[in-house]
């Protein structure tokens, strides 16, 4: 008897859940909340359909790409061998890394500085509160997103045909990347500022450029520096793998060592990259916190 009641309660709960969540899909009307005083009908829910579509896409993608999970497990022994090498880094390899490592840092500094400076005028031209003309800022934003869609490695690979292998290709590729990211983040920051001081300075007879410099720059300079530092962090990481396509830096060495299956050396390189990235990240985080 008691068990039956429990069962009934359970089915009641299922029914409630069904009528609360699924019924709106069936009845073509959103959930209704009614008292004596008011009646609120929620808008028709789409959530479940979107979920169904996402699950469907996942299943299709899985079957089309033909992912073979079994292969991963049958070759597991290979992975253990590689990991075994990586966790025993070859410290005597360090001297050979110093030059490429310095080159990596130089590439990211050069790329960050050039890209960040070039981004400023384009960020201003993309800000709808500064340039009120849609025909100016919409095309510029479109152009920027176009440049942004191409991955940094593709730029590096293309640039190698133009400027040759090494330092320059990597620096230019990174400055293009930095340019697009900084300009986007900066214009979004410019669009959130208080425009009333700008109006006040304009009323003193200043030109728009002067009002911009006096009223807008003090409001965004902090976030600009923060954005640039953040990009520097990303660039250090990107610069480490630029060498895979031959664009200079430690990536060349990394690619070479992987090719020779010298996993102890690879482990050493990764350890050093890890240390450099971590220290630059914490330095930049410290500086950015000081700014706010």
């Amino acid at each position, binding site marked *: 008897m008691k068990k039956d009641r429990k069962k009934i309660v359970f089915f009641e709960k299922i029914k409630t859940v069904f009528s609360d969540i699924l019924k709106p899909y069936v009845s073509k009307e959103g959930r209704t909340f009614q008292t004596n005083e008011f009646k609120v009908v929620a808008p028709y829910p789409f959530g479940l359909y979107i979920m169904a579509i996402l699950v469907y896409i996942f299943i299709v993608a899985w079957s089309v790409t033909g992912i073979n999970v079994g292969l991963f497990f049958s070759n597991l022994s290979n992975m253990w061998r590689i990991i075994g090498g990586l966790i025993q880094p070859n410290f005597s390899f360090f001297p050979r890394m110093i030059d490429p490592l310095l080159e990596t840092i130089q590439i990211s500094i050069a790329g960050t500085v050039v890209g960040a400076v070039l981004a400023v005028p384009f960020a201003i031209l993309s800000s709808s509160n500064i340039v009120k003309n849609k025909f100016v800022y919409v095309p510029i934003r479109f152009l920027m997103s176009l440049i942004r869609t191409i991955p940094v490695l593709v730029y590096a690979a293309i640039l190698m045909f133009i400027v040759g292998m090494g330092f320059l290709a990597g620096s230019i590729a990174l400055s293009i990347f930095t340019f697009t990211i900084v300009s986007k983040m900066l214009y979004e920051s410019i669009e959130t500022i*208080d425009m*009333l*001081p700008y*109006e*006040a*300075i304009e*009323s*003193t*007879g*200043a*030109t728009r*450029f*002067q*009002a911009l*410099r*006096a*009223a807008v*720059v*003090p*409001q965004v300079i*902090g976030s600009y520096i923060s954005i640039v530092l953040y990009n520097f962090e990303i660039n250090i990481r990107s610069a480490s793998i630029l060498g895979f396509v031959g664009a200079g830096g430690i990536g060349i060495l990394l690619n070479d060592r992987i090719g020779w299956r010298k996993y102890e050396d690879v482990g050493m390189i990764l350890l050093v990259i890890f240390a450099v990235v971590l220290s630059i990240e914490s330095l930049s985080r410290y500086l950015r916190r000081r700014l706010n």
Partner: protein
Amino acid sequence: MIRFEDVSKQYGNGVVALKNVNLTIEQGEFVAIIGLSGAGKSTLIRLVNKMIETTSGKLLVNDVSVDQSLKGKALRKFRRRIGMVFQSFNLIGRTTVLKNVLAAKVADKGFFASLFGYYSKKDYLDSLEALNNVGILDKAYIRADQLSGGQMQRVALSRTLAQNPTIILADEPVASLDPVTANMIMTDFKRINEKFNITVIANMHHVDVALKFVNRIVGIHEGEVVFDGPSNLVTEAILKKIYNRELSDDDIMFKKD
């Protein structure tokens, strides 16, 4: 001297903000413009430095005709001598008080001086003197967003003074301040008006503040000037004409005892 001759303003959406305004304001006068919100007070003030353009009529400011032909460099030069103070102060919060005042000087600078934010020693002295004139010299190197509302309005006033203006346009200068602070700011305005013989035109929402500090009152109702005269001639009947209703508590800043 500022002279409005049959000035009207119609906005693009068809709203008529001002109708045939005739007004002459002599150099050194302190004028308060009162009326309901939406009556056209802000429009009237903004016509003077051409932040808004007149639709018809003639407007003469310091012998300059403010019309379509006034633009570009000439307009900027014209604006140099007209200061403006706002209800929300419009300061740059993230920088120092002194930098805010110096910003009034940027209009005189060339391209490179503006770019690098360079100001001469005289600019600094002028700005500090302007701060001294409203008694907040000690705040010069404090960030503007650290100040109280009254202090912020004083910084805005010094910024305007640093412009060395002949006219100050004040758009609801005390509407967002408490009564005590409002009193002090109005006293500042009055003192500056008398000391430097600067014309002050102030939009005022609070009738009692206007009557207490200002000698000439202009009442606007639905875009038309319905009263223009000394404050001691303003009667209950006139106020009823301007406001088209009895005064409410919102129109009074200082509580009656």
